[in-house]
């Protein structure tokens, strides 16, 4: 019956009419909803020997010059494989580095000493938190702020 949905309405007409006045308050305004990005838009694509994998943008914290060709630019070609499979096939040039949540969001830094030792590996260093791949805020890679010593 067509009136079925109407009968569900239990609001008094007085209330309806009172609230109807809110239409007069309508106005146009500047407004935009938060846009959701696609997965590829937030990813860096790694490629090697016809296989590709996705990591979050910002997850690569060390990229040696001689391995820059492992980053796909433009349209990536190859078969997308799971991260586990990609890592096991390319472990010779990938190093996974655990970070804390505070480091990932830039609340705490990765020490310059740690970064230096990571660079010496000559591997692409990718941040992880637990078993997840994580982006790292650029703030976490900046040198620690040193306290100013009072001049004598």
């Amino acid at each position, binding site marked *: 019956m067509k009136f079925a949905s109407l009968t569900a309405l239990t609001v008094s007409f007085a209330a309806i009419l009172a609230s109807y006045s809110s239409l007069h308050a309508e106005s*146009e305004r500047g407004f935009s909803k938060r846009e959701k990005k696609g*997965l590829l838009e937030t990813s860096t694509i790694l490629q090697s020997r016809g296989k590709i994998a996705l990591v979050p943008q910002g997850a690569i914290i060390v990229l040696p010059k001689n391995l820059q060709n492992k980053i796909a630019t433009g349209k990536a070609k190859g078969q*997308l494989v799971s991260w586990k499979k990609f890592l096991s096939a390319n472990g010779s040039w990938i190093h996974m580095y655990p970070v804390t949540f505070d480091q990932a969001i830039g609340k705490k830094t990765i020490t310059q000493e740690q970064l230096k030792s990571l660079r010496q590996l000559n591997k692409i260093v990718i941040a992880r938190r637990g078993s997840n791949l994580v982006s790292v805020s650029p703030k976490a890679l900046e040198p620690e702020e040193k306290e100013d010593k009072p001049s004598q």
Partner: protein
Amino acid sequence: MKIIYTTLLLSTIASSASEYVNYIRESHFITGKPGEIPHYEYHTDIQNVDGAKGKLGVLNKTVYDLFVIDQNDLSKEYPLDSKTVYTHAPTAELSIISDGPATSEPFTRADKPFYVTYTVQNLTPISDIADPRFNSVVLMSETSNKRLTLSTIDDDLKAKTVRYMPMPLMGGSDATKVSGSINFTINENAEIDADEFASQDVKILPKHVGSLSGIDSSERYFKVPDATFNISNMYPGSTARIYVYPNNNPSDERTIKNILANQELTDIKDSVIANLDELIDEKGVWTLVAQLTETPWEDEMIDQVSFTKVTNLKVRGNISTQK
């Protein structure tokens, strides 16, 4: 950081096929401020499970998105499910009741009202939160060409119902030409990058336009000719009833035919109304009517035409012969 226990129920419809790779993207919005680039975390190598219970650290807002991507074509990326967890944010519900048949998507006609019922809870006093944007939300309507802020809600409220007419929300002054969809949302009270807390669409159908033709009201008919009926945008499930009545007794309605619409907008073209004389059994003025019935509203006139039926033709003239 607020620790929230939640169960993510993520469908894995397409992901069961071996040619797809799964990802769950965890997006942490730390400040919640407009333009913020979130911090991303990818869960990879996900097993096909119906649900995963996790302990989540949420600073402001965390969005979980499940994607699958075609192994051989990165452009084939499918977002399958999404869940948002807030630390401090209102909860909102929104439903629309229209006069149309109860379906998953409510609908009504451009000249008829519908009712929006909404609930907003968990609005936090401004002094209690760092981000004052969660102190109020806005109810908005949006069509393809018009967006309106209908109400700013500062206090929790439960099941408030407001009556709306479609045309002021959609624009346009002719109900026979207004159609489309109105999306009602309850959003964060921010001008950019606002989060949406609840959403519901209502479909708006144009009002019908119809006519009777073939009978001239200025004519006197010994034999009433066939009439033709046309109508566009008949309301789903409605009936066009064609009948005739003598003007000296309007309650003597004599139904000629009923034309049924299907469950969508229906157009009837050149429906012939024949053999009127079988029903018109006396001389005088008669009215042929097309009426829309079986709608959620009162019966409505589509078109009508009055005419005069005569039973004897009086011929005035002379016959003369000439030799």
